[in-house]
């Protein structure tokens, strides 16, 4: 379930079956969440007070600098947001005017997780449910990247599949 406030900002979230998974928090953003599950600091290029950007990553605020961030974390550009058992994926959203606008990453279940600006974390089933007019929505998905899962992720995915099998 999502709150009426969130449903008003993202009209397609309800139909998607999205759920809220954390309270609102201004300390971290979608980049911190999807890059490192970091809830301690806001990731952003430019050096503003209270923010963090990894050394050695482009910081010119172009869309490519956000792609560079995930490439430095081991991701490679790919096509297709479909679930691949041995790969973790991230989806970068963009608008023509602003460039990068949002990132979310794929969970072991195949659903996606997003930190919405200063708002809540959510789990959602499609990427399209966050698309639309920025800044309330995030434009459209421009780039998918993926990297091979580590052993822990693979075990978690196996466990998820086994649980799902017995639930059926």
């Amino acid at each position, binding site marked *: 379930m999502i709150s009426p406030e969130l449903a008003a*900002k993202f009209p397609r979230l309800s139909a998607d079956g999205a759920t809220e998974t954390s309270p609102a928090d*201004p*300390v971290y*953003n*979608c*980049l911190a969440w999807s890059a490192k599950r970091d809830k*301690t*600091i*806001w990731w*952003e290029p*430019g050096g*503003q*007070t*209270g*923010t*963090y950007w990894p050394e050695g990553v482009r910081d010119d*605020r172009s869309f490519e600098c956000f792609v560079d961030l995930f490439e430095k974390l081991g991701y490679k550009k790919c096509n297709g947001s479909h679930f691949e058992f041995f790969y973790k994926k991230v989806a970068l959203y963009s608008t*023509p*005017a*602003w460039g*990068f*606008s*949002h*990132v979310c990453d794929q969970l072991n279940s195949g659903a996606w997780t997003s930190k*919405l*600006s*200063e*708002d809540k974390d959510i789990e959602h089933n499609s990427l399209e449910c966050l698309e639309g*007019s*920025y*800044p*309330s*929505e*995030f434009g459209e998905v421009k780039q998918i990247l993926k990297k091979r899962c580590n052993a822990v992720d693979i075990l978690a995915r196996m466990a998820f599949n086994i649980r799902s099998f017995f639930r059926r």
Partner: protein
Amino acid sequence: MGRLHYQDFVRLVYGASAGLVLHRHKDTLVASERMAVWGREQEKDEISFRWDESAITKNDPYLAISCDKPDELPLVPLDYATKGYSISAEELNSILVDEIKRTIDAHAKLLASTTYKPEPNEDVKEIETIFKGLAKNWKSATAGSSLIYHRFAHPTYHSLLCFAKNNKEEVITLILRELKTNPDWWFEALKFLTNTDPTKKGDNFNSAREAWLNWGKERI
């Protein structure tokens, strides 16, 4: 035409996206916004005007659109802010300038004819009302932004800094109170207004907030 002056940019953009209701506060022209849907409005192909002269009220100001030295203010270059909101200066000017001039003139006449004179002790209250309106507008218009610099490019943020430049001490205090009770990313505005920075490199939101609240604890 060449580059649009920043002050005109703010005026034109808000003329395009909102019904403006103006009144004068000291040297600043203040407007209330009737339609705070900036982010969506600029996506439309057609721009419509909503203008309501009967709605003028000193208690509902939202937007300051003028200041002493606007060129000193932008934290984001004009062409970037323009680009960010998908409206070129030339497009804006060709579509809107006549209409805006007409409406500004109409309000100037109206303001000249008004008999309202603020009491001396109304000033501080009015500054607080204007600040709160601008802050509320900025927060709601940019609440979905994933990056802070997108929020800093919003015209209301610049309007708020314009207004703060003319009422510096009062607004610094109001921002510190806002930071305490309703935390948001006010650090760059405070740095800009105070010419100081009590935060340390590597501070996150909470530690930067703590540093500023300690810095200004006697003012809150």
